[in-house]
Protein backbone atom coordinates (compact mmCIF):
# COMPACT_ATOMS: atom_id res chain seq x y z
CA UNK A 1 0.00 0.00 0.00
CA UNK A 2 1.29 3.36 -0.99
CA UNK A 3 2.32 5.56 1.80
CA UNK A 4 1.12 9.09 1.82
CA UNK A 5 3.72 11.65 2.61
CA UNK A 6 3.38 13.12 6.01
CA UNK A 7 2.46 16.76 6.19
CA UNK A 8 5.60 18.82 6.31
CA UNK A 9 6.47 20.48 9.51
CA UNK A 10 6.95 23.93 7.92
CA UNK A 11 4.72 26.67 9.23
CA UNK A 12 1.93 27.62 6.88
CA UNK A 13 1.28 31.13 8.12
CA UNK A 14 2.00 34.06 5.87
CA UNK A 15 4.76 36.11 7.42
CA UNK A 16 3.21 39.43 8.36
CA UNK A 17 6.22 41.16 9.79
CA UNK A 18 6.70 43.15 6.54
CA UNK A 19 3.04 44.15 6.36
CA UNK A 20 3.41 47.63 7.87
CA UNK A 21 6.20 48.35 5.39
CA UNK A 22 4.04 47.39 2.44
CA UNK A 23 1.12 49.39 3.73
CA UNK A 24 3.35 52.42 4.31
CA UNK A 25 4.70 52.12 0.80
CA UNK A 26 1.16 52.15 -0.63
CA UNK A 27 0.25 55.01 1.69
CA UNK A 28 3.16 57.13 0.49
CA UNK A 29 2.32 56.33 -3.12
CA UNK A 30 -1.23 57.59 -2.70
CA UNK A 31 -0.13 60.59 -0.65
CA UNK A 32 2.28 61.66 -3.36
CA UNK A 33 -0.05 61.11 -6.30
CA UNK A 34 -3.12 62.66 -4.71
CA UNK A 35 -4.11 66.04 -5.97
CA UNK A 36 -6.69 67.61 -3.76
CA UNK A 37 -9.34 69.21 -5.85
CA UNK A 38 -9.40 72.96 -5.55
CA UNK A 39 -12.85 73.62 -6.91
CA UNK A 40 -16.13 71.90 -6.31
CA UNK A 41 -17.67 71.09 -9.64
CA UNK A 42 -21.27 72.20 -9.71
CA UNK A 43 -22.15 70.91 -13.15
CA UNK A 44 -22.83 67.40 -14.29
CA UNK A 45 -19.77 65.98 -15.97
CA UNK A 46 -20.00 63.00 -18.21
CA UNK A 47 -17.06 63.57 -20.47
CA UNK A 48 -16.93 62.10 -24.00
CA UNK A 49 -14.33 59.54 -25.00
CA UNK A 50 -11.88 59.90 -27.87
CA UNK A 51 -8.84 58.08 -29.20
CA UNK A 52 -6.44 60.72 -30.53
CA UNK A 53 -5.53 62.22 -27.20
CA UNK A 54 -2.66 64.51 -26.47
CA UNK A 55 -1.20 65.37 -23.13
CA UNK A 56 -1.01 68.80 -21.64
CA UNK A 57 2.62 69.70 -21.20
CA UNK A 58 2.53 72.25 -18.45
CA UNK A 59 -0.17 72.20 -15.84
CA UNK A 60 0.64 75.70 -14.63
CA UNK A 61 -0.47 77.20 -17.94
CA UNK A 62 -3.86 75.53 -17.87
CA UNK A 63 -7.14 77.05 -16.76
CA UNK A 64 -10.25 74.94 -16.59
CA UNK A 65 -13.78 75.72 -17.72
CA UNK A 66 -16.54 73.28 -16.85
CA UNK A 67 -19.76 73.12 -18.81
CA UNK A 68 -22.88 71.10 -18.26
CA UNK A 69 -26.25 71.07 -16.62
CA UNK A 70 -26.23 72.15 -12.97
CA UNK A 71 -26.06 69.23 -10.55
CA UNK A 72 -29.28 67.78 -9.20
CA UNK A 73 -29.19 69.66 -5.89
CA UNK A 74 -28.71 72.99 -7.67
CA UNK A 75 -31.47 72.61 -10.22
CA UNK A 76 -33.88 74.54 -8.01
CA UNK A 77 -31.61 77.58 -7.96
CA UNK A 78 -30.04 77.50 -11.40
CA UNK A 79 -32.47 75.59 -13.60
CA UNK A 80 -31.63 72.80 -16.01
CA UNK A 81 -30.03 74.71 -18.88
CA UNK A 82 -26.31 73.94 -19.34
CA UNK A 83 -24.05 76.47 -17.64
CA UNK A 84 -20.42 77.48 -17.65
CA UNK A 85 -18.46 77.16 -14.45
CA UNK A 86 -15.17 78.97 -13.96
CA UNK A 87 -13.41 78.52 -10.63
CA UNK A 88 -16.32 78.26 -8.22
CA UNK A 89 -19.03 80.27 -9.90
CA UNK A 90 -21.30 80.11 -12.91
CA UNK A 91 -20.49 82.77 -15.46
CA UNK A 92 -21.99 84.04 -18.69
CA UNK A 93 -20.11 83.84 -21.97
CA UNK A 94 -19.71 87.61 -22.04
CA UNK A 95 -17.78 87.53 -18.76
CA UNK A 96 -15.18 85.18 -20.22
CA UNK A 97 -12.92 87.94 -21.52
CA UNK A 98 -12.57 89.24 -17.97
CA UNK A 99 -12.04 85.76 -16.61
CA UNK A 100 -9.30 85.05 -19.16
CA UNK A 101 -7.49 88.25 -18.29
CA UNK A 102 -7.67 87.34 -14.60
CA UNK A 103 -6.26 83.92 -15.38
CA UNK A 104 -3.52 85.47 -17.48
CA UNK A 105 -2.59 87.78 -14.61
CA UNK A 106 -1.77 84.72 -12.54
CA UNK A 107 0.96 83.75 -14.98
CA UNK A 108 4.29 85.44 -15.43
CA UNK A 109 4.49 87.97 -18.20
CA UNK A 110 6.42 85.87 -20.70
CA UNK A 111 3.98 82.98 -20.43
CA UNK A 112 0.74 84.88 -20.77
CA UNK A 113 0.18 84.18 -24.44
CA UNK A 114 0.75 80.47 -23.88
CA UNK A 115 -2.30 80.07 -21.67
CA UNK A 116 -4.28 76.91 -22.46
CA UNK A 117 -7.96 76.61 -21.70
CA UNK A 118 -9.11 73.10 -20.91
CA UNK A 119 -12.79 72.66 -21.64
CA UNK A 120 -14.44 69.96 -19.61
CA UNK A 121 -17.77 69.66 -21.30
CA UNK A 122 -20.60 67.27 -20.64
CA UNK A 123 -21.67 65.05 -23.55
CA UNK A 124 -25.17 66.47 -23.60
CA UNK A 125 -24.19 70.10 -24.02
CA UNK A 126 -25.13 71.53 -27.40
CA UNK A 127 -22.59 73.14 -29.69
CA UNK A 128 -24.32 76.52 -29.39
CA UNK A 129 -22.95 77.10 -25.91
CA UNK A 130 -19.54 75.69 -26.78
CA UNK A 131 -19.21 77.94 -29.79
CA UNK A 132 -20.24 80.99 -27.77
CA UNK A 133 -17.43 80.18 -25.39
CA UNK A 134 -14.98 79.70 -28.23
CA UNK A 135 -15.95 83.03 -29.75
CA UNK A 136 -15.29 84.80 -26.46
CA UNK A 137 -11.99 83.00 -26.04
CA UNK A 138 -10.97 84.22 -29.47
CA UNK A 139 -11.88 87.74 -28.43
CA UNK A 140 -9.85 87.31 -25.27
CA UNK A 141 -6.94 85.99 -27.33
CA UNK A 142 -6.73 82.70 -25.44
CA UNK A 143 -6.57 80.50 -28.48
CA UNK A 144 -5.01 77.30 -27.24
CA UNK A 145 -7.76 74.89 -26.36
CA UNK A 146 -7.92 71.40 -25.01
CA UNK A 147 -11.16 69.48 -25.12
CA UNK A 148 -10.64 67.20 -22.15
CA UNK A 149 -11.77 63.68 -22.99
CA UNK A 150 -11.26 60.24 -21.58
CA UNK A 151 -9.54 57.46 -23.47
CA UNK A 152 -11.80 55.43 -25.68
CA UNK A 153 -11.00 51.80 -24.98
CA UNK A 154 -12.54 50.36 -28.14
Amino acid at each position, binding site marked *: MAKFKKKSEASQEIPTSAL*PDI*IFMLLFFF*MVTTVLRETTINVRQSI*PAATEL*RKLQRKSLVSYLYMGKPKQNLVGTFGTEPKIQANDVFINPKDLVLWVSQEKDKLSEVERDQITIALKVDKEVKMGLVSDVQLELRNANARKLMYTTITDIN
Partner: protein
Amino acid sequence: MADIAFLLLIFFLVTTTIANDRGLSMQLPPKPEQDQEIIKIPERNNFKILINSADRMLVEGEPLNDYREIREMVKDHVLNNGRDENMSDSPKEAVVSFKADRGTSYEVYIQVLNQVQGAYYDMYAARAGVSNKKWREIASDIGNPENKRIYDAARKDFPMAISISEPSKIGGN
Protein backbone atom coordinates in the same frame (compact mmCIF):
# COMPACT_ATOMS: atom_id res chain seq x y z
CA MET B 1 1.15 50.85 13.53
CA ALA B 2 -0.20 49.03 10.53
CA ASP B 3 -3.73 49.94 11.64
CA ILE B 4 -3.00 53.66 11.52
CA ALA B 5 -1.27 53.26 8.19
CA PHE B 6 -4.28 51.32 6.91
CA LEU B 7 -6.60 54.05 8.04
CA LEU B 8 -4.58 56.73 6.28
CA LEU B 9 -4.22 54.55 3.22
CA ILE B 10 -7.95 54.09 2.94
CA PHE B 11 -8.49 57.82 3.39
CA PHE B 12 -6.15 58.63 0.52
CA LEU B 13 -7.55 55.83 -1.62
CA VAL B 14 -11.02 57.27 -1.26
CA THR B 15 -10.13 60.91 -1.77
CA THR B 16 -7.80 60.38 -4.73
CA THR B 17 -9.03 61.52 -8.09
CA ILE B 18 -6.58 60.69 -10.79
CA ALA B 19 -6.10 63.90 -12.71
CA ASN B 20 -7.21 63.71 -16.30
CA ASP B 21 -5.14 66.08 -18.37
CA ARG B 22 -5.53 64.49 -21.76
CA GLY B 23 -7.76 65.51 -24.57
CA LEU B 24 -8.05 66.83 -28.09
CA SER B 25 -5.92 69.89 -28.54
CA MET B 26 -6.96 72.65 -30.82
CA GLN B 27 -5.85 76.12 -31.80
CA LEU B 28 -8.54 78.72 -32.42
CA PRO B 29 -8.10 81.12 -35.32
CA PRO B 30 -7.21 84.72 -34.44
CA LYS B 31 -9.92 87.28 -33.95
CA PRO B 32 -11.22 88.40 -37.34
CA GLU B 33 -10.14 91.84 -38.46
CA GLN B 34 -12.55 94.39 -39.89
CA ASP B 35 -11.29 94.50 -43.45
CA GLN B 36 -10.37 90.86 -43.78
CA GLU B 37 -10.66 89.58 -47.29
CA ILE B 38 -12.39 86.29 -47.83
CA ILE B 39 -10.13 83.70 -49.36
CA LYS B 40 -11.88 81.42 -51.77
CA ILE B 41 -10.78 77.82 -51.53
CA PRO B 42 -11.17 75.84 -54.76
CA GLU B 43 -13.98 73.34 -54.45
CA ARG B 44 -11.75 70.33 -55.02
CA ASN B 45 -9.42 71.20 -52.15
CA ASN B 46 -12.20 71.55 -49.67
CA PHE B 47 -13.42 68.50 -47.78
CA LYS B 48 -16.76 69.45 -46.30
CA ILE B 49 -18.32 67.94 -43.21
CA LEU B 50 -21.69 69.26 -42.08
CA ILE B 51 -23.59 68.11 -39.01
CA ASN B 52 -27.15 69.19 -38.36
CA SER B 53 -29.03 69.63 -35.13
CA ALA B 54 -30.22 66.03 -35.21
CA ASP B 55 -26.56 64.90 -35.27
CA ARG B 56 -26.84 63.67 -38.87
CA MET B 57 -23.77 64.09 -41.04
CA LEU B 58 -23.34 65.24 -44.60
CA VAL B 59 -19.84 64.55 -45.87
CA GLU B 60 -18.89 65.87 -49.30
CA GLY B 61 -22.58 66.16 -50.16
CA GLU B 62 -23.43 62.59 -49.18
CA PRO B 63 -25.12 61.48 -45.97
CA LEU B 64 -22.89 59.36 -43.77
CA ASN B 65 -23.93 57.26 -40.81
CA ASP B 66 -20.66 56.02 -39.33
CA TYR B 67 -18.26 58.80 -38.36
CA ARG B 68 -15.36 56.30 -38.32
CA GLU B 69 -15.41 56.30 -42.12
CA ILE B 70 -14.34 59.94 -42.10
CA ARG B 71 -10.80 59.02 -41.17
CA GLU B 72 -10.03 57.16 -44.41
CA MET B 73 -11.98 59.68 -46.47
CA VAL B 74 -9.87 62.53 -45.10
CA LYS B 75 -6.67 60.64 -45.82
CA ASP B 76 -7.75 59.92 -49.39
CA HIS B 77 -8.65 63.55 -49.84
CA VAL B 78 -5.42 65.01 -48.48
CA LEU B 79 -3.04 62.53 -50.10
CA ASN B 80 -4.72 62.75 -53.50
CA ASN B 81 -2.02 64.94 -55.07
CA GLY B 82 -4.18 65.84 -58.03
CA ARG B 83 -5.07 62.33 -59.19
CA ASP B 84 -8.82 62.44 -58.69
CA GLU B 85 -10.34 65.67 -59.88
CA ASN B 86 -12.82 65.82 -57.01
CA MET B 87 -10.11 65.67 -54.38
CA SER B 88 -7.25 67.93 -53.34
CA ASP B 89 -4.37 69.19 -55.50
CA SER B 90 -1.76 68.67 -52.81
CA PRO B 91 -1.61 68.15 -49.06
CA LYS B 92 -0.46 71.75 -48.73
CA GLU B 93 -3.67 73.08 -50.24
CA ALA B 94 -6.11 70.57 -48.81
CA VAL B 95 -8.58 71.88 -46.26
CA VAL B 96 -11.03 70.02 -44.09
CA SER B 97 -13.92 72.28 -43.31
CA PHE B 98 -16.21 71.30 -40.58
CA LYS B 99 -19.46 72.95 -39.67
CA ALA B 100 -21.89 72.03 -36.95
CA ASP B 101 -25.21 73.44 -35.88
CA ARG B 102 -25.95 75.13 -32.58
CA GLY B 103 -28.12 72.13 -31.77
CA THR B 104 -25.45 69.52 -32.54
CA SER B 105 -24.41 67.61 -29.46
CA TYR B 106 -20.90 68.09 -28.16
CA GLU B 107 -20.26 64.36 -28.19
CA VAL B 108 -20.78 64.05 -31.94
CA TYR B 109 -18.63 67.12 -32.54
CA ILE B 110 -15.80 65.54 -30.51
CA GLN B 111 -16.14 62.23 -32.33
CA VAL B 112 -15.86 63.87 -35.74
CA LEU B 113 -12.99 66.13 -34.66
CA ASN B 114 -11.29 63.05 -33.22
CA GLN B 115 -11.50 61.25 -36.58
CA VAL B 116 -10.25 64.23 -38.58
CA GLN B 117 -7.36 64.90 -36.23
CA GLY B 118 -6.62 61.18 -36.13
CA ALA B 119 -6.38 61.12 -39.92
CA TYR B 120 -3.84 63.94 -39.84
CA TYR B 121 -1.88 62.32 -37.01
CA ASP B 122 -1.75 59.08 -39.02
CA MET B 123 -0.37 60.93 -42.02
CA TYR B 124 2.19 62.86 -39.98
CA ALA B 125 3.23 59.70 -38.19
CA ALA B 126 3.75 57.99 -41.55
CA ARG B 127 5.88 60.90 -42.76
CA ALA B 128 7.95 60.88 -39.59
CA GLY B 129 8.23 57.08 -39.62
CA VAL B 130 6.78 56.61 -36.15
CA SER B 131 3.55 55.23 -34.76
CA ASN B 132 0.50 57.41 -34.31
CA LYS B 133 0.86 57.23 -30.53
CA LYS B 134 4.53 58.19 -30.65
CA TRP B 135 3.72 61.06 -32.99
CA ARG B 136 1.21 62.47 -30.54
CA GLU B 137 3.80 62.27 -27.79
CA ILE B 138 6.27 64.13 -29.98
CA ALA B 139 3.71 66.76 -30.90
CA SER B 140 2.80 67.29 -27.24
CA ASP B 141 6.38 67.96 -26.27
CA ILE B 142 8.03 70.15 -28.88
CA GLY B 143 10.09 71.91 -26.21
CA ASN B 144 12.58 69.11 -26.75
CA PRO B 145 14.81 70.09 -29.75
CA GLU B 146 14.91 66.56 -31.16
CA ASN B 147 11.10 66.34 -31.08
CA LYS B 148 10.85 69.82 -32.58
CA ARG B 149 13.03 68.75 -35.50
CA ILE B 150 10.90 65.67 -36.26
CA TYR B 151 7.74 67.71 -35.80
CA ASP B 152 8.79 70.48 -38.18
CA ALA B 153 10.08 68.05 -40.80
CA ALA B 154 6.80 66.10 -40.89
CA ARG B 155 4.66 69.21 -40.99
CA LYS B 156 6.61 71.00 -43.70
CA ASP B 157 4.24 71.79 -46.58
CA PHE B 158 1.65 69.66 -44.83
CA PRO B 159 -0.46 71.91 -42.63
CA MET B 160 -3.19 70.53 -40.44
CA ALA B 161 -5.83 72.64 -42.09
CA ILE B 162 -9.00 71.99 -40.15
CA SER B 163 -11.38 74.89 -40.51
CA ILE B 164 -14.20 74.94 -38.02
CA SER B 165 -16.92 77.34 -39.07
CA GLU B 166 -19.26 79.08 -36.77
CA PRO B 167 -22.32 76.86 -36.30
CA SER B 168 -25.55 77.53 -38.09
CA LYS B 169 -28.59 78.48 -36.07
CA ILE B 170 -31.27 76.20 -37.43
CA GLY B 171 -31.52 73.86 -34.47
CA GLY B 172 -30.89 76.84 -32.19
CA ASN B 173 -30.87 77.36 -28.49
